[in-house]
């Protein structure tokens, strides 16, 4: 589903590579934690998957496509297959919960009929059916992140990328978010989650890839967080 072959990324004005010859493969339906200190290359990895950045060296395949050979006007098609969730939710404050989710469908040209059908379904999935008409500012952090997840998942992507989705949430709320991501993973969606949260990684017992200064230093199939910052 995601394959990196000897990928190096060097940002301009930075001597040290953000990723240094990384090779790894994520299979369809896997749940993968990406761990490592700040600056270890987690975010760069996610940005490369979305083709927000181009690798300096190496090849990247996502959903069967070679990103180097994907022309720029086809990048939106790629991103429709890859849902993304961030630490800071990135919701539109002047739109309601339902409108935020619908926005993701409107901008890719879905019909109003289809939107009206799909949005309540996904809000139900994330447990926010009764808050569809609220504005993001009226919701708790955990609820806002659920809206963000609903928006990322409403188009049924085959991959879900989560960049520290629990970074702004307290532990008990985080557990709820992880249950939700686990449910989404069980529908067959590949989930890649970058995180600092040791408790979550340890409790989930899923594959753990640890990055350090741009290198993969550990790749365990049922791993624990394992490193102390």
């Amino acid at each position, binding site marked *: 589903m995601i394959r990196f072959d000897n990928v190096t990324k060097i940002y301009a004005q930075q001597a040290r590579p953000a990723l240094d010859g990384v090779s790894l493969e994520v299979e369809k339906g896997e749940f993968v934690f990406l761990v490592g200190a700040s600056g270890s290359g987690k975010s760069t990895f996610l940005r490369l998957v979305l083709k927000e950045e181009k690798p300096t060296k190496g090849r990247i395949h996502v959903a069967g496509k070679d990103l180097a050979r994907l022309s720029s006007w086809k990048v939106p098609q*790629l991103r429709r297959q*890859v849902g993304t969730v961030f630490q800071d939710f*990135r919701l*539109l404050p002047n739109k309601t919960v339902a409108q935020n989710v619908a926005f993701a469908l*409107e*901008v*890719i040209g879905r019909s109003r009929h289809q939107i009206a059908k799909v949005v309540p379904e996904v809000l139900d999935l994330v447990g926010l059916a009764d808050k569809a008409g609220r504005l993001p500012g009226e919701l708790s952090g955990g609820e806002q992140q659920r809206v963000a997840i609903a928006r990322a998942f409403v188009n049924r992507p085959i991959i879900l990328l989560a960049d520290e989705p629990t970074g702004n949430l307290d532990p008990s709320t985080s557990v709820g978010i992880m249950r939700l991501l686990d449910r989404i993973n069980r529908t067959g969606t590949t989930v890649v989650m970058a995180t600092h949260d040791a408790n979550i990684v340890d409790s989930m017992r899923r594959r753990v890839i640890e990055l350090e200064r741009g290198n993969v230093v550990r790749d365990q199939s049922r791993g624990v967080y394992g490193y102390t910052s």
Partner: protein
Amino acid sequence: MRLRFVFSELGNSLRRNSLMMVAVVVITAFAMLVLGAALLVRTQVGLTKHSYYQKLQVSVFLCPPDSPHPQCPSQASESQVSAVEDELNSLRPTVSSVEFVDQDQAWSIYKDLFKNSPDLIAYADPKSLPESFVVKLSDPKKFDVVSTAVSSMPGVDVVQNQDEFLKKLFGMMNSLRMIALVACVVLVVVSAVLIGVGVQMAAASRRRETSIMRLVGASNTYIQLPFLLEGVLAGVLGAVIGFGAIAALRVVIIDHLLKPILGVLGGRLVGWSEVMATLPWLVGLSAVVAALASFVTLQRYVRV
């Protein structure tokens, strides 16, 4: 493509960015006002020139009896006159008409010209007036052709023209056109830059939306079209307002500014039909410029 979405985004953006859009519209309106005025002046110059040209003629005076000029030892003979006439006729189509003015006709023209000065008529001798050819030209700028062809022929006294005056008039008209052209270019560039800045500000104010749109895989068109339409809308609105100002100012510009200058030269003054004719140019130009300015800005600031 869901047009409803594009237009609702456009509406949101216009509301939020309204002050900047007002500035863009005002400047574009001003630019288009000056451009439209320049176009009208140019049209007026053309009309005046055309009518002035039509009245232009060249007189080829033939040797009268007892001329003091060395090129006229005696009165032009009949064969010399017909040789000159043939030569003039051979210059068609540069020459559009050749008319012979004999002494009787010359005398009646003379009398008409000096009808307020009976002394001049009393002392003049109809037999001393020269015969002449009155030549009309299809292109008055080609006076030289007539002059070189016949001025040294035997029997020709002098070829009279309004050449010097014409050259000055043409020079003035040309510099008017150049000034108008330069003003147009400068103003169009200014309004393009402003539209670019306006679109850039609109894009900045909606960075949150566009970043989410990119993330969920909206196409370039979907992301950029509202901004592009916003720029074009501002440009077109500016052009329409500028046109309105021109229509309102027509009376001032044409009737009070141009009439005293151009009226003496004769010819029609610019009317409503010419004013209306500027509208598609103004709207078309500002729409194209706005679209280009918006597009270029978007390539730089709303990357996908």
